[in-house]
């Protein structure tokens, strides 16, 4: 049996004395795209932050394995170098740092951590140009400070650009569709779909079914009150859209 890219085992997480995640179990084999759907406050974003290693979250039980190895003791940058990428719901502004400068710093930091040689400038320029053209990102945008004054669509496209350049094993996308109009959604979805491969897994977090028309998942999980309450194939998303979350929450109760 192949080792899953991501395995979450009975994960319990607390924030300021409040239990947020109450026993999450997930298994993402290589090549699969899983969607997590749930209403606001169900703990979806918390899961994405905990996977990426954000501070302020107390893990009270369970484990997270990336490629079969526990990552709980790893710093966020170590997890990144190990191949975990989080596309943020609200990408953070970094004033004064040109997007281009940031991209190169990120690529080189990860290469350094893995003991690889730094990217050469011509190679870097080629990579950025290729990925940028697929995402409608021009050089003018790359010269601007990262995320500063970017529109909602620009921010999300910049996230996917970083994802393409860093070539992670596991892509976690937190509400990547929020703040996007139909056209921008299509561009972002195309970017994501072009990255689907048999060696990579993706976890798509959303509360709307519409994103899943563009990025078609292999498995859909319904998230409620800090855990997965129902899993199924892509038709579950449509069913959920029709019935509403309440139906599944009652199942639990």
């Amino acid at each position: 049996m192949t080792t899953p890219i991501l395995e979450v085992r009975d994960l319990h997480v607390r924030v300021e004395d409040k239990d947020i995640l109450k026993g999450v179990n997930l298994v993402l084999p290589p090549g699969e795209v899983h969607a997590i759907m749930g209403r606001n406050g169900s703990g979806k974003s918390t899961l994405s932050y905990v996977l990426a290693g954000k501070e302020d979250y107390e893990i009270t039980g369970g484990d997270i394995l990336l490629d079969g190895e526990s990552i709980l003791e790893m710093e966020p940058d170590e997890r990144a170098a190990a191949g975990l990428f989080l596309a943020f719901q609200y990408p953070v502004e970094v004033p004064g740092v040109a997007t281009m400068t940031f991209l190169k710093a990120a690529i080189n930091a990860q290469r350094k951590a893995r003991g690889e040689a730094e990217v050469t400038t011509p190679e870097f320029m080629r990579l950025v140009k290729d990925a940028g053209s697929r995402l409608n990102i021009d050089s003018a945008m790359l010269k601007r400070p990262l995320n500063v004054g970017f529109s909602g669509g620009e921010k999300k496209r910049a996230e996917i650009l970083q994802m393409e350049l860093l070539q992670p094993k596991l892509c976690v996308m937190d509400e990547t569709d929020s703040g996007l109009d139909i056209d921008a959604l299509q561009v972002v979805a195309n970017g994501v779909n072009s990255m689907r491969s048999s060696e990579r897994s993706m976890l798509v977090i959303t509360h709307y079914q519409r994103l899943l028309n563009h990025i078609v998942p292999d498995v859909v999980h319904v998230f409620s009150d800090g855990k997965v309450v129902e899993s199924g194939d892509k038709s579950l998303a449509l069913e959920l859209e029709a019935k509403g979350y309440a139906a599944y929450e009652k199942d639990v109760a």
Partner: protein
Amino acid sequence: MAMLDTPTLKENIDQETVDKVRALDVDKYKYGFETLIESDVAPKGLNEDIVRMISAKKEEPEWMLEWRLEAFRRWQTMEEPSWAKVSYPKIDFQEISYYAAPKTTAGPKSLAEVDPELLATYEKLGIPLKEQEILAGVEGATGETATPYGGNVAVDAVFDSVSVVTTFREELAKHGIIFCSISEAVREHPELVKKYLGSVVPVTDNYYATLNSAVFTDGSFVFIPKGVRCPMELSTYFRINEKNTGQFERTLIIAEEESYVSYLEGCTAPMRDENQLHAAVVELVALDDAEIKYSTVQNWYPGDKNGKGGIYNFVTKRGDCRGHRSKISWTQVETGSAITWKYPSCILRGDESRGEFYSIAISNGHQQIDSGTKMRHLGKNTTSRIISKGIAAGFSDNTYRGLVSAHAKAKGARNFTQCDSLLIGDKCGAHTVPYIESHNSSAVFEHEATTSKISDDQMFYCQQRGLSEEEAVALIVNGFVRDVLQQLPMEFMVETQKLISISLEGSVG
């Protein structure tokens, strides 16, 4: 939608960050070596005899001695200023030695005569002193060698109280440029020194400037004749080495009509438990249509993590835009010193003259910085621009203090001021104290100020992309100071970026 896209920044940094800041190690000072060379040190204390001794050591003419004595008498009647937001134990001016000179510097004729320790020191400092033979004053050696910075940079190196070497002099002389130590200028160009010394910062200006006038030991002298554009960067490196010595350097730069010069000073000192005093005076004079660009990278020893030791840096720097359409631009990167008290200023006397001040002031550990500028608009249609970026980490205090004033005759004066502060951790402080005095209704002064923190969200975002905590802080800070970095000469920009990273090492993780 705009609301949604704005990340929420946390007001308080969590406990772990605070702990890390507390554990920060400012002992990693890169320049904290001491050079063991024989030196000639004056006895501790200050009196007229010491002033006479300094003057005699420098073989000065009588008028210079009188000038010093007048300053000394005046200084005895003055009080140390206390208005700055800095605190330190009272300085005992009688416990300091006012003169120290490396013994071997009296006109070496060959490289062998130069103390090898001194040459090793230059290497450690990374001074662009590839041309060490030239530095050592070997006859016939020319300064055609490229420096590590890739361009030509003429250097004057001041070690404790004495200027030990000046490079590229012959090349500069071809253009009529004088670049030498101030001691030499007093002897060789008395007419210029008499005319300009003290004409910008009067002997009676302030406590430290007056003290400097009495006991100044060395520094650089630059004269750019009319119509000449100085073909290379001029640079001075100052280093305090001896124990318990003060360094009182004096720099005088004169740019005649339609001339241009770019000048850079760098400062380092060894690590010592005692505090050392540094009280410099820099005077700049720009005549009609002349431009002086003065850049400083100050990296004096800041003291250890408990605030022990470090340099007290009390400096008076002032530029006089004496001529019409003249321009003086100060750029400073302040990363060192236990205490910094420094306000590089411009007197905008000539009509349409322009003053600029670009500053990056980084404080970490227990450093205290009170720095800023003064822009005094006297002439018509004078303009000035102030961009100050203060970064406070650890337990430090970082104050911007600035004055912008317009005289009744300064019709159409304009100033733009921007002061940004960045806090790292929650045990440090940033303060902005702007003073504005306008006596002219047509003057337009604008002031903008911001204070921000490196947020946990920014750190997490950068780390999620693979940057370590230190790489993330360096990247964010370099972004924050970008406007000012761009003002530095190209050769020094990269070095300064590195210095910023080193200064903030351990500030978060």
